[in-house]
């Protein structure tokens, strides 16, 4: 299943946030969207998943979601969005509850995703006991439990410290290698974008417009921290965004 965003514009009251966005997210690929603070990245991904309605333009899914997908468009949030009063297991079972699947199936799905995210030992633990990296892995396990067609990730790593981020990036890469999921990945972090994206979409500052789309052809598994080619792409992206980031950073909140 591909996703297609056509002539999308959005505004809140009189605040124009997004202007004429066109993106295609092809099946099995990770599209990263980068842009300065407040440019409308989160708005964009909310629109893509149907959590908000676009003012103009349309978002289409092309082709059928895979058989057995309980929730084709599944989010992974920056703040993990775990229910603190449910254990790891309970957080995953929450999203399976409304569906017509048997108890055994629920149990086996939970066991399966916990295994895939190396969390099997932590099934009965409350979120408060987990580190940030572990919490985000629980959120990933929860997303996987519904067999998503597309993962919509809004800065999934930006609440983590940089070492945990490194570890989780490796996890995401190996997960993609195994599952070849489709994803729209929003981030601030150019290093993440060049490590995880098959395609990087650069937005301008608010109102967000597409400034550039960069395809990166190196296979994900071969991208190393110290690869000079990636470093060059990253530097190029940074030069593209530096001015915008500077302006965005120096804007007063109520101006």
């Amino acid at each position, binding site marked *: 299943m591909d996703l297609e965003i056509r002539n999308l514009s959005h505004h809140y009251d009189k605040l124009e946030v997004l202007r004429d966005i066109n993106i295609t997210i092809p099946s099995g690929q990770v599209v990263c969207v980068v842009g300065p603070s407040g440019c409308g990245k989160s708005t964009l991904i909310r629109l893509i998943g149907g959590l908000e309605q676009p003012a103009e333009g349309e978002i*289409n899914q092309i082709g059928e979601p895979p058989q057995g997908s309980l929730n084709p468009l599944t989010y992974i949030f920056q703040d993990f969005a775990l229910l603190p009063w449910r254990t790891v297991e309970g957080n995953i079972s929450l999203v399976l509850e409304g569906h017509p699947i048997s108890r055994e199936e629920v149990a086996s799905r939970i066991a399966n995703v916990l295994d895939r995210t190396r969390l099997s030992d932590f099934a009965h633990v409350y979120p408060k006991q987990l580190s940030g990296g572990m919490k985000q892995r629980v959120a990933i396990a929860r997303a996987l439990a519904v067999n998503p067609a597309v993962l919509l990730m809004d800065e999934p790593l930006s609440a983590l410290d940089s070492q945990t981020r490194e570890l989780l990036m490796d996890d995401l890469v190996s997960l993609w290698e195994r599952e070849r999921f489709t994803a729209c990945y929003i981030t601030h972090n150019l290093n993440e974008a060049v490590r995880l994206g098959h395609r990087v979409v650069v937005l301008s500052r608010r109102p967000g417009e597409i400034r*550039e789309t960069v395809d990166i052809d190196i296979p994900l598994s071969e991208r190393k921290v110290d690869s000079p080619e990636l470093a060059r792409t990253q530097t190029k992206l940074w030069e593209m965004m530096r001015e915008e980031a500077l302006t965005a950073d120096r804007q007063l909140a109520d101006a």
Partner: protein
Amino acid sequence: MTDSVSGTAGAPITDDAPATEAGGRRSVPFRGGGFAPKPVWYVAPLMFVALVLLWEFGSSNGYISPLVLPAPTEVLGAFSDLVRSGMLAKHLQASLTRLVIGFACGATLGVLVGVAIGLYSIPRSAFKPLVAAIFPIPKIALLPLFIIWFGIGEGSKVATILFGSFFPMVIATYGGIDAVDRNLIRMGQSFNLSRVAIVRNIILPSALPAILNGMRIAASISIILLVAAEMIGAEYGIGAYVLLAGNLMATDQLIAGVATLSILGLIVSWLISLAERYFLRWRA
């Protein structure tokens, strides 16, 4: 590595695409929204007017016996009697004097004790449990003792209100100080600020929102206690007026008096909101 603007791939674009197309192209379903109840400004006044009209209708048609509830017009009549006779001003003056003195003293003492509990171990150990034990005691139960302790003049009335506002202020103040961001205190220490400077410049301003919120509660309690306070030998005062009306079973006056108290409460809470808006304008 190639640069290319995407969005031109995929199926051909048709105008006015329907939700589902033959080619398996479907619009993403909307599933957000809701859970953000927006107050509709005209509902409250509308309901209020409707309620009063219904009540008046019920009263004038005998569905509501005057014993159960006087008609709104009668309440209004009682209220305008109160205004025209000049008694409202007299009652208000008496009550407000008590309120202001009692509340000001109670709040000041409460903040002082609260700061002591918030900053020092010994007052904390000694007074925190004491406050917790005394706060829930109903003040009306103590009125007979108050008469002996503070006399039947203004003393016991002011004392009742003072007691009522003291305890919530203590609790709000030390709660506010307990919640001060310890990082800010550490910052002050790291710049070698003196203890006094840290209390004055960091701790007290930090606790101010909690203190103002405590004031809101203390003020409500003070107004509620007005009736209890004016049980003791009060000639004038809204509380005394309400009590007399209750005793005479003059329900129209009773409701007029209660409404006055309610309005007084709303005004005080509005004043505190103003203070909050001014003093806490730095808040996000």
